């Protein structure tokens, strides 16, 4: 009998293990993909190739129905919750009953020691970019969109409502020393009465980006920095409520619930949204998803570009790339120099994470002469 028990256990355990490649082959076959195991023989077994095979094998398991069935065991997903990119936080001041979502890598850029070289590369690239534009007679205004977790107060006892990282401070100091114009949104948000900002949040509860309140404050600060007298009557504004699904909400679950968001929609006298193409306006906004939210795609002309246009009373063109505020948008401009024709000011917005994330790319971009 003990022998039978041993045999039964050994067979069950080995079948459980051997089922991995068999089910993998089956799922690859069913999906019309080549069997992942065959990848091993495609090249000479160098360390790099063997690592790639290993990674592919690990990746393939995420498509394997057998493994997924095991992964669905009760409690397992909960135990591994820390792997999710979404960090849920309950009980924020004045939002006691709500769960606010934060982007975990962004939160870690604040809680963890940074790669200190990133901010140095960023300041060098910014000064170089300012010089490139200045050579064409174009003024540059830099806007760093604060990390949501740096602005949203996380607890009753948090003394600093807006966290200014040493990297940000170093970056701003380097730019100030080189006379680069910067709009300090951290200072702008820090000046907002905490009671007010908690009631009308500067950031969206289930999104990584700023709310209509936060982006309007940014637009106000940028316009103040530009110092141009506003042209009255060019654009009108009205408040509308939109169903909005936050990006964090989308990442978190398969069936996100839209939340109503009140935004300020901007339109000209004919009721048309602000939409000059690049090269058709004196002000060019370049940026990442902070410049996209409520403006492009899911928005109705209520984002940063529209608020800038409303406050300036003149059209503002937009070039934006999600996640590419630091370098990709500048490279895009270098490829399309005609977009800079007639431009007097470039407002350059990028996310604070680009100053601390080791993944941030900060290339020196040359504009064609």
């Amino acid at each position, binding site marked *: 009998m003990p022998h039978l028990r041993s045999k039964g256990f050994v067979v069950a355990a080995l079948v459980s293990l051997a089922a991995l490649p068999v089910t993998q082959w089956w799922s690859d076959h069913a999906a019309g993909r080549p069997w992942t195991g065959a990848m091993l023989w495609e090249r000479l077994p160098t360390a790099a190739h063997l690592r790639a095979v290993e990674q592919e094998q690990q990746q393939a398991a995420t498509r394997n129905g057998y*493994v997924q069935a095991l992964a669905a065991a009760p409690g397992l997903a909960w135990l591994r919750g820390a792997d999710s990119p979404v960090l849920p936080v309950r009980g924020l001041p004045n939002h006691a009953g709500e769960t606010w979502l934060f982007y975990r890598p962004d939160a870690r850029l604040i809680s963890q020691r940074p790669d200190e070289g990133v901010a140095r590369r960023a300041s060098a690239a910014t000064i170089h970019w300012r010089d490139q534009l200045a050579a064409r007679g174009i003024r540059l205004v830099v806007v760093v969109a604060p990390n949501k977790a740096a602005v949203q107060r996380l607890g009753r006892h948090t003394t600093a409502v807006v966290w200014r990282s040493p990297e940000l401070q170093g970056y701003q100091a380097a730019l100030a020393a080189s006379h680069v114009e910067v709009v300090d949104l951290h200072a702008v948000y820090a000046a907002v009465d905490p009671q007010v900002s908690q009631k009308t949040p500067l950031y969206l509860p289930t999104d990584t980006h700023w709310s209509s309140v936060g982006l309007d404050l940014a637009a106000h600060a940028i316009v103040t920095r530009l110092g141009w007298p506003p042209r009255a009557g060019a654009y009108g504004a009205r408040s509308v409520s939109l169903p909005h699904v936050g990006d964090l909400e989308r990442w978190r679950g398969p069936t996100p619930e839209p939340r109503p968001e009140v935004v300020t929609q901007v339109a000209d006298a004919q009721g048309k949204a602000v939409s000059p193409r690049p090269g058709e306006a004196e002000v060019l906004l370049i940026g990442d998803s902070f410049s996209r939210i409520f403006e492009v795609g899911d928005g109705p002309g209520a984002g940063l570009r529209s608020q800038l246009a409303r406050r300036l009373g003149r059209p503002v063109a937009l070039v934006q790339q999600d996640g590419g505020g630091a370098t990709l948008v500048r490279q895009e401009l270098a490829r399309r120099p005609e977009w800079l024709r007639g431009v007097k000011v470039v407002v350059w917005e990028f996310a604070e994470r680009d100053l601390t994330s080791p993944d941030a790319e900060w290339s020196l971009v040359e504009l064609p002469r």
Partner: protein
Amino acid sequence: MIFASTLFLGYFLPLVLGVYYLLPSAGKWRNRWLLLASYVFYGWWDPLLLPLLGGLTLWSFGFAWLLGRTDYPDGRRRTLLVLGVSGALLALFFGKYFGFACENYNALAARWGWSPAPAVSWALPLGISFFTFHAISTLVDVYRREATPMASFADYACYLAFFPQLIAGPILRFGAMAPAFAERRHGWPQVSAGLGLFCLGLGKKVLIANTLAPVADLAFNARQLDAGLAWFGLLAYALQLYYDFSGYSDMAVGLGRMFGFEFPRNFNAPYMAESLTDFWRRWHLSLSAFLRDYLYIPLGGNRHGLGRTCANLLVVMLLGGLWHGAAWTFVVWGLWHGLLLVSERWLDGRAWYAGFPRFFRVMLTFGLVLIGWVFFRAPTLGAAMDYLRALVQVVPASEAPAKLLGVELFTLPHLLTLVAALFFAWSRRRAHDWSTHLTIRRALLCLVLLWLSLGVLGTHKANPFLYFQF
């Protein structure tokens, strides 16, 4: 390839085990197959490392053969031993410590105006700390006539490269293991006991150590810490290290059993130790035994008075610390343990708190071990000192970095895993013994652990074992 990966579990293990038992038990076929599998396993990291392993095998086999000759006088045998061991240590030095030595020399050179050494660095050859120790064990055991050299080069190569223990131990004494390569017992009970222990080890690694790993990583890389966060992170690291390494050891011992070998246990509830002396009788037993038999005793052990005994202890612990890694943090960790052991030796082998009730003895020992882990985990001595300061910073940090860290650390899964890990670390059950008599209930528990581990591994990237870096 690591044990806790789908590649090893789904392909390598079933294939190697299946073919092994299809081969005839008589003759050398099974050892040859294990040798081939072990070289594939090691070469999987980087095929270019295979000549290093092969070269050291050839070197130590040759010297062991010479040392085994009965017609050589003692003086010649001693010279051969010194030569053979020096060769193995030289491989270890160049593989692991050369960059560290150059770095420190260059720091001194910059200060004193000497010409700097060329800046060279290469990746640590995986498992070199372990297989060089196996080679040294061979030479010393044969020199002491405690073992005879293996007649078959392939069998010896299999001993040195045997994949279950190749990368992170346990460190197997040649004298104890050599007979098993000639003859060993196989059967369903051995395989089931091995698989059972393997499943337990896998569960320890995947379900406990991997869950606690982010807690320790976040705490040790934090911008701001207070005492609460720092102690939580340190506790998580202590448990992660224990479950990671003891999990690996269980898997290694379990794999050994599947192929008919009985490896010694490597852990014996170390966090239940009542003194530091007791701790080293429970933690990484195979390393402790190696350092005792091949370093402490040859240095004179405790045979030349208290002063010499204490000096020997300090030397052994310093070198033991350095063995874990080429960094000053490991030296300080070894020194910390060395000083504590010396203090206990000074008090007739008892800790200063030996008169306290058992609970306090265990807690105080655990606390002293935790302080040592700060040096073990911190990337630099400066970072270790910062962390120690945070451990006594009672005023809660209130800025965003600490708040965010708290939100990430103090979650229910982390808290429950930590409590469960502490419970099992302080329980009387030992995986090594528990798995030798598998009842139906135990077998079912092992299967559940295996399935859960496969589920986790199938949805997340593999995490390497902590001891691989040593």
